[in-house]
């Protein structure tokens, strides 16, 4: 039997997304990713400015790879926020346009919206920006995810999450 814990459909508890990000995704914890906002089908995460994520020491701008990880993470979280159940998902494809470099010393936000959800596939669009200038995007993304890619839920065993009936 596959284990599919449910999120209380009355609300998407940001703590559920927080638990997945911080306990289920070690790379997000390593990057220092934080959950900023969670709505039904829409999630915002932040990436702090860290010197070890710099791609060009002369300018201090973040490497594109760090932006890619933030966007892939937020895109996946928006699918959980849309599904309302903790089924495993897997990225099928991710297309990112790098519109401008992420500024040095500035925190980066990324917001993703799961705008279409079918039984097997989730369609997502996402953008990265500095919180001071939310309309001046650093990157734009479209992504698709496969739903039910594994029978294991996206949380480590024994994780206690409020609102989730395991």
């Amino acid at each position: 039997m596959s284990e599919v814990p449910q999120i209380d459909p009355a609300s998407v508890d940001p703590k559920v997304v927080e638990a997945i990000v911080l306990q289920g995704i070690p790379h997000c914890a390593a990057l220092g990713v934080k959950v900023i906002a969670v709505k039904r089908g829409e999630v915002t995460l932040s990436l702090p400015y860290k010197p070890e994520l710099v791609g060009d020491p002369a300018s201090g701008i973040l490497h594109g790879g760090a932006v890619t990880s933030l966007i892939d993470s937020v895109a996946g979280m928006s699918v959980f926020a849309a599904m309302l159940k903790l089924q495993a998902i897997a990225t099928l494809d991710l297309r990112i346009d790098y519109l401008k470099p992420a500024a040095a010393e500035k925190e980066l936000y990324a917001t993703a919206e799961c705008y279409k959800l079918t039984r097997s596939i989730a369609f997502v669009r996402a953008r990265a920006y500095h919180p001071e200038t939310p309309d001046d995007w650093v990157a734009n993304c479209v992504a698709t995810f496969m739903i039910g890619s594994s029978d294991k839920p996206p949380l480590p065993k024994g994780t206690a999450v409020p609102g989730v009936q395991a």
Partner: protein
Amino acid sequence: MTVDFPKLIAEAREKRDFSPFLNAVPYFRFLGLSVKPGAAEGELVCVLPGDPKLIGNARLPALHGGVVGALLESAAIVQLIWSAETDAIPKIIDLSVDYLRSARPVETYARAIITKHGRRIANVRAEAWQDDPAKPVATAHAHFLLG
């Protein structure tokens, strides 16, 4: 911080050793990235170590999709630096990644092929694999702005 990238890039090309260049980029150090010669002449392979901090799904466990994307981008950058005459780091314009298999948190490799090397824009394809190069875990294509 002042790093003489044109010098590091010229040295990497001349000495066929990318480690001083990789060491000068903080994010490459964070990933633990290294470069080795590939099977084909002039082909370079980027090597990503199996590191718990690069995991994107602790339950499976699997490598983070963003890290796989970063590895593919890095392979493209290294191949462009090797092949191009410019001494500047190519700037990524867009990246499209297809994820083909779940990547385990073990050593992962990537190589890139420059499809079209224009004066200002390069089009690059890249693929990443683990045990078997014939079974890529992900492929990508990307555009870079040169010089």
